[in-house]
């Protein structure tokens, strides 16, 4: 018997916030598309664009499956209405453009990009339910998704996680290659769910790390290559505590962290309907929003094709350069990073106590104990492209970066709660509200970018652009001229200024360019 069709209604209304460019060649299928679903047709046959399908999926989940009436990813076309409320001057913003719930959108983007998403929040808030939905959207039956879900517990062994050698082979084998392994089915799935990952013992976490990080599992020299997949992990304690400390390498593999927000009792009626109708949304997912493997692969390709303008990229660079620099960490210029200090096991307060004369309130780097890894930067770009794609854009907007960055850096950027910024009036909430804090960091970085007028006057960017045209045919004289330009720029940049993160990275870039021209000059002279 077919499923309850009202739950399977997929929005036929346009979900794209941008008015589309009218197609000059109107598709035959447009005549036959409307409020009645044609369950006999796959989405390919119905000619639905994948980004539209992704949006339909989002709206089906928010309207039908997960009661998440939160719009914490806020977009505005016009200035929004902002209400200041309460003694603590809390701001309630009414966005003026289509906005989204992070609890629904981020997992969906994770699904589309085959990345890794961690759900955090108290028990019973829908973390596992959301993860299961992603498995169903990937085309797996609900039962299979539930059975394949790995539940973390303190007694979980590597064999529980990955599989077992066949006992008969263990007895009879003369060499290790003769032992066959019975691998766990979940390893071959394209949506992998680990429930309560922070209850997995440390030894087993290491095995999980291999699968998450390198996409293969290994038992007794036998390798199982896993397919590319989206990962959904849940944890109750956002600090990674729980029963076991989560190893840092495993935490670092997670791409985004999403918090399950509190349930609004005004929507109790919807819960009551679920109980009375005995409906589980994951069991009535409409066929139209099931993605085939080929479709998800195409989604990834399409997302990768979303472009990033030089202006937006420049701001992302500026923002990311704020955090790693630590002037007192080393003598060698390249080693003046927080990572150097951390590797030397220097106490953090010992570092911060050393006064370099920088404005510790203005310096964004003072707010964090670490910088950003390459992996994090790649994740940031990937998810920013994904959200732009979801919104129907072919190019990233700055607002896309601003909305995504807190979820990507949620567990990656570690705040220094003793930093003067958090003690400033009105900033206390940022100690606990990590999403708002990271967004604030981004806003402050953009403000500083504007103050420095880097869109118009950016000598380092100009030199980089000049270099990127290539060295082919560059004469020795020109190379020398460029070297002199760099050597003159450095003292000019530092004139009376303290060394901040962005300047530090600029100087390293100048050193890089200088070195490349020096090597080139040497080579040209030998010709």
């Amino acid at each position, binding site marked *: *018997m*077919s499923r*309850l*069709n*009202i*739950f399977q*209604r997929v929005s036929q209304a346009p979900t794209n916030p*941008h*008015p*589309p*460019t*009218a197609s*000059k*060649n*109107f*598709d*035959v299928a*447009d*005549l*036959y*598309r*409307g*409020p*009645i*679903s*044609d*369950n*006999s*047709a796959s989405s390919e046959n119905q000619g639905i664009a994948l980004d539209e399908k992704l949006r339909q999926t989002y709206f089906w989940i928010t309207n039908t499956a997960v009661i998440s009436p939160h719009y914490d990813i806020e977009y505005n076309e016009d200035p929004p209405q902002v209400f200041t409320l309460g003694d603590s001057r809390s701001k309630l913003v009414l966005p003026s453009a289509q906005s989204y719930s992070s609890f629904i959108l981020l997992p969906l983007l994770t699904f589309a990009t085959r990345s890794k998403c961690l759900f955090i929040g108290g028990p019973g808030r829908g973390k596992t339910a959301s993860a299961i939905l992603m498995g169903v959207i990937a085309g797996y039956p609900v039962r299979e998704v539930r059975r394949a879900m790995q539940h973390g517990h303190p007694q979980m062994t590597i064999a529980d996680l990955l599989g077992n050698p066949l006992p008969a082979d263990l007895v009879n084998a003369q060499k290790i290659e003769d032992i066959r392994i019975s691998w766990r089915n979940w390893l071959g799935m394209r949506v992998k769910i680990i429930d309560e990952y922070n209850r997995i013992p440390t030894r087993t976490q290491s095995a999980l790390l291999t699968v998450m990080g390198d996409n293969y599992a290994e038992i007794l020299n036998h390798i199982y290559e896993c397919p590319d997949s989206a990962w959904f992990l849940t944890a109750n304690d956002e600090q990674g505590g729980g029963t076991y400390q989560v190893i840092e390498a495993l935490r670092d593999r997670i791409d985004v962290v999403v918090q399950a927000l509190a349930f609004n009792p005004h929507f109790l009626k919807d819960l009551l*309907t679920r109980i009375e*109708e005995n*409906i589980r949304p994951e069991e009535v997912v409409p066929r139209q929003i099931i993605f085939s493997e080929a479709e998800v692969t195409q989604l990834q390709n399409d997302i990768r094709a979303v472009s990033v303008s030089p202006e937006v990229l420049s701001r992302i660079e500026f923002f990311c350069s704020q955090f790693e620099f630590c002037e007192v960490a080393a003598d060698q210029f390249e080693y003046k990073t927080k990572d150097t200090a951390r590797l030397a096991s220097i106490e953090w307060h010992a570092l911060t106590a050393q006064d370099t004369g920088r404005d510790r309130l203005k310096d964004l780097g003072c707010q964090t104990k670490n910088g950003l890894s390459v992996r994090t930067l790649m994740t940031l770009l990937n998810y920013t492209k994904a959200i732009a794609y979801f919104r129907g854009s072919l190019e990233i907007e700055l607002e896309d970066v601003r909305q995504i960055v807190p979820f990507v850096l949620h567990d990656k950027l570690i705040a220094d709660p003793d930093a003067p910024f958090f003690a400033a009036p009105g900033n206390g909430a940022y100690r606990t509200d990590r999403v708002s804090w990271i967004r604030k960091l981004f806003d402050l970085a953009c403000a500083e970018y504007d103050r420095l007028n880097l869109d118009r006057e950016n000598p380092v960017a100009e030199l980089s652009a000049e270099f990127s045209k290539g060295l082919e045919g560059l004469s020795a004289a020109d190379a020398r001229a460029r070297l002199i330009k760099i050597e003159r720029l450095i003292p000019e940049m530092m004139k009376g200024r303290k060394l901040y993160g962005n300047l530090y990275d600029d100087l390293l870039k100048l050193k890089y360019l200088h070195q490349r021209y020096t090597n080139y000059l040497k080579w040209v002279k030998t010709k």
Partner: protein
Amino acid sequence: MISAVLAAVLRSGREDFNNRFAIAKRTYQELDAQIFSNLLAECVDPFLQAIAEIRPDQVNVAANAAFDASLILIGQRLIGFHANCDSFGRNVWKQILIPGARIFADRPDRAIASIFNALCNLSGTPGARAEQWTSEVASFLPQCNHDDMFFAIALIAAWRCGLAHFRKTAIDVADRLPEKIVLQLFHANDSDGWQSVKKKLMENPWFDPAHPNQIPDHVRVVAEIGAFRGFGGPFAEPPLVKSNDEDILIRSADESWLLTADSFGSTLHKIPLAEFESGKNGEVLPKGLPDFSAKGKMTSFASSPTTLALTFEYSHRIKLLSLV
């Protein structure tokens, strides 16, 4: 009184059908159980009986599709007791689905969804003639030997009934149909031949094969489109026009559209304002225009290769003149 076929289907899935109705009732509070039952008995039942004679294995598929479609159509008041669609809705069953069961039996769910969606699209397009479409496609049923053929005919009929944006697609589809059927669809003379008719259609959007000799040799008004939004039209303010060389673009207040228009009707399609702004104003008015002084000052004009569009300061309507 329903037939044994429908009774058997309803009996076997009683709980599920009841649940579906209950949930639909929650979504569509004006969903009327009596009207719904009447529709099942009057329209769905005969359809299922017809399907049962040809493909008994598809009866359940047909029943479920019909049940869910009826919930949505009645719930959204597209048929049942919405005045515009009441007769259409029943006519679709009685004139198309039931008589056409022999060609729809293999994929009844596709037929139900496609036909009702087409009906909704026609009914929802200002100026489109849904009733005409229903009777036209019904008249071609005896000549269809497959549902794909029916849907091809239905597409051409939809174009002829006012969905002008399907022009190119429909002409392509017509190439794949028997010539006799295509000429009948266009009420063209058999002697003309489809290729000749097609050539004229491609060259002149204002050519009507039913009246092939009505092609004057002067610029003439062929259509007036649009109206004030307060009177049910799309334009909040008197519109302006530009062109992108191929098509006419329209702007009214802060909205803009691309116009598709021909002798069978016209449709408007939303476009970004930037696309309108990048269009071109008309440069030179052709000679021999009718006198429009009573309309007030002309506020804009633009042309495609075949059509001139004029707008006036006191009018929310756009005059279209044929240039061919």
